[in-house]
């Protein structure tokens, strides 16, 4: 499950929620999958993230919502090691991301609104390339498996540049899961998808939920985000404004509280209320 380390019980959700039987994974057995401690990020004169505390356990699904410019993508980039935090630290299974990044990255699967695919290569060649980078055993069979999983088995030999947006996104999912990642990061995966493709994506994502996998998703789709999540975090101006168990939220309530949080004027340097998870 996802918990806020510094969140008080007064927000209506338990301060610490037990994990869903997290399996023994890698070196940090028993440690939360992801811990972000007091993470801040400054880019130029602008403070993008301020004192973010997050803990994500295996078997949980965290949805991050927030208006444009709230720092959601920056947070995901820091959690995956693409960016270094200005202050604070991130641990993956108890290991500092800054110290063993290459080894830790093996666990990551990232689905972004960018596909990370090579247009000139075929679907199979893209998966072969990424599969080899991750040392996937029995790769040809695994490629067939993931292509079937995302419904692209008939298009394995087609260059990606001939794919529709929905097909590209499905292949991006196949790319992200080919090495069976235990930590899945989704950065606005629904961007540009038609309703049918969105439905397919939701179905694939639901199938990816499991006790061995922690999933963190950024989205602007409140309904889909809330339906899949165990916990919902709303980022506003680089701070956690809402951090609630999804079971405690209805869509209407989430919408109402989101609007209130987003419209609340910036309180400058006071980070205490939001960082403690105090909701408006």
């Amino acid at each position, binding site marked *: 499950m996802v918990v806020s380390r510094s969140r008080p019980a007064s927000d209506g959700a338990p301060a610490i929620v037990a994990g869903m039987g997290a399996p023994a994974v890698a070196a940090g057995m028993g440690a939360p999958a992801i811990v972000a401690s007091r993470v801040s990020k400054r880019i130029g004169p602008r403070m993008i993230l301020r004192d973010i505390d997050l803990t994500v356990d295996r078997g949980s699904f965290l949805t991050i919502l927030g208006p444009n410019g709230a720092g959601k993508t920056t947070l995901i980039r820091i959690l995956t090691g*693409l960016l270094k935090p200005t202050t604070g630290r991130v641990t993956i299974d108890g290991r500092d991301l800054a110290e063993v990044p290459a080894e830790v*990255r093996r666990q990551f699967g*990232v689905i972004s609104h*960018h596909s*990370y*695919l090579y247009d*000139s290569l075929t679907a199979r060649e893209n998966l072969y*390339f990424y599969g080899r*980078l991750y040392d996937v055993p029995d790769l040809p069979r695994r490629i067939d498996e993931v292509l079937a999983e995302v419904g692209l088995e008939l298009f394995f030999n087609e260059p990606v540049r001939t794919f529709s947006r929905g097909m590209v996104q499905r292949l991006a999912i196949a790319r992200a899961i080919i090495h069976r990642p235990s930590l899945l990061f989704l950065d606005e995966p629904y961007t540009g998808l038609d309703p049918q493709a969105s439905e397919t994506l939701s179905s694939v994502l639901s199938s990816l939920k499991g006790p061995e996998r922690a999933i963190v998703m950024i989205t602007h789709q409140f309904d889909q985000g809330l339906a899949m999540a165990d916990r919902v975090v709303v980022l506003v101006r680089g701070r956690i404004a809402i951090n609630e168990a999804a079971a405690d939220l209805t869509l209407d309530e989430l919408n109402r509280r989101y609007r209130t949080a987003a419209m609340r004027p910036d309180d400058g340097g006071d980070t205490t209320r939001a960082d403690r998870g105090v909701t408006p």
Partner: protein
Amino acid sequence: MSFLRKVGLIAWKDLRAEFRTKEMISAMLIFALLVIAIFAFAFDPTRDEVRVIFAGLIWVAFFFAGILGLNRSFAGERINDAIHGLMLSPVDRSAIYFGKLLGTWVFMTIVEIVALPIFIVMFNYTPAGSWLLAGTAILLATLGFVAVGTFLAALTANTKASEVLLPVILFPVVIPVVIAAVEATRGVFGGLPPADFVTWFKVLGVYDAVFVAVPFLLFEYLLEV
């Protein structure tokens, strides 16, 4: 998978993608051939003059064709943000650098192998020296050029005017390679005794060693910029 295998895999990916579209290598070849044609019409050199200027002419064509390749080497990684896919994989960041370097080195060498005989025919020039030495000089000079160029191409790939910026910052850094390449090739093709041009081979060797090692150490920081 070992470091070298990952380097080879990244180069394989670039070669595979390029040989499917032939966008970059055809542009490099056409550019080199155009330079040959322009020089052949612009100059009407005597046999002695050709001996003096031939090495300079071929390197003008090779280096400027190489710029086209370098500009494309990281541009392809920016499409679909593929560079982040690479950076997220459990690959040492320097393997990305060496993979890109290897791919561009192969492309430039192919262009040189095709263009050099055409240069020789168009200028009716008969190189006198050892082809083995000439090949070594060309490979060493190309490696030095591509080693620095790949590093700077990664640096400029995120800028708006990367295609203009790359040659502007690259050529001042590769001046030692340009001079050594021309002098070494002129010495070999002119049939001079090795003692007269061996220094230029040493310059190329040292330059290559330094400018392969420096990006190896700095590339990780460069990608974080």
